[in-house]
């Protein structure tokens, strides 16, 4: 009896410590999924979601839901591949598909990422111009700040800063609530697929898929999981991280669409980019909603401007086989740091060139991203099914079927984007 009492008295402690340990493990693992997911909500993404809401109201929210499902599937796969093989995507592509395909993928990725980084700095410039700061101050200062944090900090410090930066996305949730949306219509749009069969509707649907699932996000999540030195034992928690990141990405997108649907769509206002949306929100949803929207753009652009060159550096080093780690010294990871600096410098330089037409650069970037997405997904599928590489974590037939169906749908979207976009 005494023994039983003592056992029962002692038993809660391990349970608590077990829960605490699990929570501690989860917190330790959190990062790759959250950062890769949230950085997809960059200024280009915010613009796409704003246009989706402003033009079509709540009707096409289901596209965002499907994009989020695709994001969960492929980010989960990317993280799993990184954790199991200890290599980034481009490294695995070189090893499994040969040097030519890997080189082609790397070169395309680098060009596309330079363009996307341009878009991020253009977003920072546009966002801070809302608050009266000229781009000739805002862009160089933020570039130095972001590069300084990433290049000089330790892995954990950088991760904490980036995660703190992600908190800025709460601004969109607040902005959406302040717009007083019709929640019933919003949830109906989310659950019941319908869309007008017009060129604009198809374009915005494909753009939504394209902006949610970006090639640089796929390469980033895998390489970052490697850099974080996650092991197969962490996979359970890593799945939670990926799902949380992807769902938050979808939720933020949802609130952006909802904010624009409740205000801009209701009044028939048209917008060209995210800063237009922020300006247009002011008379409709109040100064606070507009300010929060603008703060969100700047924060999102800062996060993506930090992560895009990082994703590029990881990929270039993966191709060459050089060290790519945020904790490494410059002497040990020269190529990694030089690539980061070069991508940032080129992007900043392009944004600051007076009178440069950024639109063709951004269009080319979108086309390159669309062209690159499908081959990357196909490479990922091949690696996921390779028993020699993935061992016991090889994708089973059922899951492989889901990947194939998703890839087919994304293929349709990419084809539509290329045909309608060019036409």
């Amino acid at each position: 009896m005494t023994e039983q009492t003592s056992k029962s008295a002692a038993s809660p402690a391990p349970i608590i410590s077990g829960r605490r340990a699990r929570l501690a493990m989860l917190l330790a693992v959190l990062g790759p999924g959250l950062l890769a997911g949230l950085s997809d909500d960059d200024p280009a993404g915010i613009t796409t979601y704003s246009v989706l809401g402003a033009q079509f109201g709540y009707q096409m929210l289901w596209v965002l839901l499907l994009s989020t499902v695709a994001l969960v599937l492929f980010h989960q796969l990317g993280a799993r591949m990184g954790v199991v093989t200890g290599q980034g995507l481009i490294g695995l592509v070189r090893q499994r598909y040969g040097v030519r395909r890997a080189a082609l993928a790397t070169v395309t990725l680098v060009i596309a990422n330079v363009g996307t980084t341009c878009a991020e700095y253009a977003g920072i410039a546009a966002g801070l111009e809302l608050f009266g700061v000229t781009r000739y101050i805002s862009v160089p200062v933020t570039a130095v700040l972001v590069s300084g944090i990433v290049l000089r900090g330790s892995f954990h410090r950088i991760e904490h800063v980036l995660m703190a930066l992600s908190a800025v996305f709460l601004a969109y949730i607040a902005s959406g609530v302040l717009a007083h949306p019709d929640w019933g219509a919003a949830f109906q749009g989310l659950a019941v697929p319908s869309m007008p069969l017009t060129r604009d509707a198809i374009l915005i649907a494909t753009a939504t898929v394209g902006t949610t699932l970006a090639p640089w996000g796929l390469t980033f999540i895998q390489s970052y999981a490697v850099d974080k030195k996650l092991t197969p034992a962490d996979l359970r928690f890593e799945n939670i991280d990926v799902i949380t990141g992807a769902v938050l990405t979808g939720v933020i997108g949802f609130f952006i669409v909802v904010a624009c649907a409740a205000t801009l769509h209701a009044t028939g206002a048209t917008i060209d980019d995210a800063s237009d949306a922020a300006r247009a929100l002011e008379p409709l949803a109040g100064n606070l909603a507009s300010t929060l929207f603008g703060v969100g753009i700047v924060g999102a652009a800062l996060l993506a401007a930090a992560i895009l060159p990082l994703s590029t550096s990881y990929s270039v080093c993966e191709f060459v086989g050089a060290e790519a780690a945020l904790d490494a010294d410059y002497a040990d990871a020269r190529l990694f740091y030089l690539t980061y600096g070069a991508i940032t410098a080129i992007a900043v330089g392009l944004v600051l060139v007076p009178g440069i037409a950024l639109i063709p650069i951004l269009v080319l970037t979108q086309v390159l991203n669309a062209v690159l997405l499908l081959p990357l997904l196909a490479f990922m599928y091949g690696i996921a099914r390779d028993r020699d590489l993935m061992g016991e974590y090889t994708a089973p037939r059922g899951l492989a079927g889901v990947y194939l169906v998703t890839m087919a749908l994304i293929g349709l979207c990419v084809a539509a984007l290329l045909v309608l976009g060019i036409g």
Partner: protein
Amino acid sequence: MLRFTDEIRQPVVLADGSAIGVLRDLTLILADGDAVVDRLAVGSRFRISHLLPWSAVASFEHSQVELLPGAEALLVPVDPTGVLPLESDEMLIGRDVLDAQIVDVGGQRLVRIADILLTRLPGERLRVVAADVGFGSVCQRMGLRRLAARWPTEAVAWEDLHLTSARGHVVQLATARALVHRLDAAELATLLAHVPTRSAVDLLEMLGPERAAAAIAATQYDVSRRLVLALDGETVETVLEHLPEEHARRWRPILAKPRPIRRPYRRHRGWRRTRGRDAAT
């Protein structure tokens, strides 16, 4: 010296001249310290269909691999599902080693393997001698030959690489970092001393005159003599220009003497002269 990526995809033909496929890969037995090629993987452009022991090979040339009569009986078919009937300690050079990540003993990533250098042993067998990690080989494989020529071969001796995990994982091969950058003259000299003259000459030509000269200067006299005499006239002249003066001075009189390869011609001339004299007398 042969490059693995130059040798694969050549036709494999039976003794009667009929092709059975193309060379897809070569296998090594890990337990075999000599790293001698054990089997050939033969198949179509898309998949490996058969494994074949090296004992079935009559000749291994750049244009084709010719098999001995009766080699058909030695073909080991591959399961239609693609699972290769490899021994537990057997690996494929192309699949398992080419493009693998090299890390140093501390686990830091250094470079990827761009090509595998093979040499011919007496009896035509092939042996892996080094892993090429130079960017030139990457360019070469991408078809950028002019660009490739600008980069020197950077090799790591096979003995300095250690397989540390299964296929495709980050720690595939480990080496002390200094070895990766390139073999120095002394290490090249050791390599040159252990490979047949034909392979050594190929290696010297690949290294370029400066590094070839440094390697020759570091070899023992008998090895360097064998190599210098085997190099063609133009190459040996450029190598001599890069040799330290005291070495160059040693070789010039030796090279000025009639070289063995020219002897048949001179003998022929002498024979004619003698013959003519004989005829006159």
